[in-house]
């Protein structure tokens, strides 16, 4: 277990896929260490508890291995693995009667505006404007454990659809088109969900930072 490449640094995917096909254990371990945590986090959006999520992710890894020959490198390896998981987790979630209908949400959702309307005058200008965080918050503070915990909590409080999109886009760094593919949502819905979700996380961070 001595592979220590930073999870967010992409490695050469063709190389890893080739090594997996050859049965290279280090390549497999590396992949597991990189993606297992994010996959669990993602699976928990669809299934009830941790042990089920662990099971679904373990099965996903086996599906990845048996599907290696069908991986054509047209999508990124990461989004391909997430797609496999999404399909399995959805099926499992349905069986547990915990369906998350990602495509159900119409663009004009009743979720409300990005910013509390009370912060604007009737003219549409700011009454209670936002202030730059870096004026009272050096960047290092924004990345402070406490601030990260606030962001994490806000993310977890989002409705599942928004949480799934924001997680894949902003936490995992997938492209918009990849997220549409993984979650089977339209480009427009992806963007609406992202917009709503990010706005709520921003509001939570703003509340936290202004308290200091």
């Amino acid at each position: 277990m001595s592979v220590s490449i930073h999870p967010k640094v992409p490695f050469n995917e063709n190389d890893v896929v080739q090594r997996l096909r050859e049965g290279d254990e280090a390549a497999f371990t590396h992949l597991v260490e990189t993606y297992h945590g994010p996959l669990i986090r993602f699976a928990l959006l669809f299934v009830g508890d941790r042990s089920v999520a662990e099971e679904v992710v373990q099965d996903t890894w086996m599906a990845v291995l048996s599907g290696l020959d069908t991986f054509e490198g047209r999508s990124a390896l990461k989004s391909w693995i997430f797609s496999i998981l999404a399909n399995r987790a959805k099926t499992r979630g349905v069986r547990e009667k915990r369906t998350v209908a990602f495509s159900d949400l119409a663009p004009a959702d009743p979720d409300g505006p990005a910013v509390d309307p009370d912060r604007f005058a009737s003219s549409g200008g700011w009454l209670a404007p936002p202030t730059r965080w870096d004026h009272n918050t050096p960047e290092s503070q924004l990345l402070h454990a406490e601030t990260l915990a606030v962001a994490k909590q806000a993310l977890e409080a989002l409705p599942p659809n928004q949480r799934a999109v924001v997680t894949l886009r902003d936490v995992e760094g997938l492209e918009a088109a990849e997220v549409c593919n993984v979650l089977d949502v339209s480009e427009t819905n992806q963007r609406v969900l992202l917009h709503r979700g990010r706005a709520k996380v921003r509001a939570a961070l703003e509340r936290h930072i202004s308290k200091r």
Partner: protein
Amino acid sequence: MLTCRELTELVTNYLEGRLSLAERVKFEMHLAMCRHCRAYVQQMRETIQTLGKLPEERVSQEACTHLLDRFRNWKQQ
């Protein structure tokens, strides 16, 4: 003219590069004149950066061992 309130609803389309040229010009003209909205867009960017820095969950030793066993079985097939 774009209002501040309207701008806050367009920010994702802006960051995603999904505004038309005309909309983008209006958006950026507003930003050039409004420091509050510049602050808002900056907060949005920082929110995205912060989300990208959330700590990863480590895979448990147990799960990793179990997966390696299954990998070895798969290899033998």
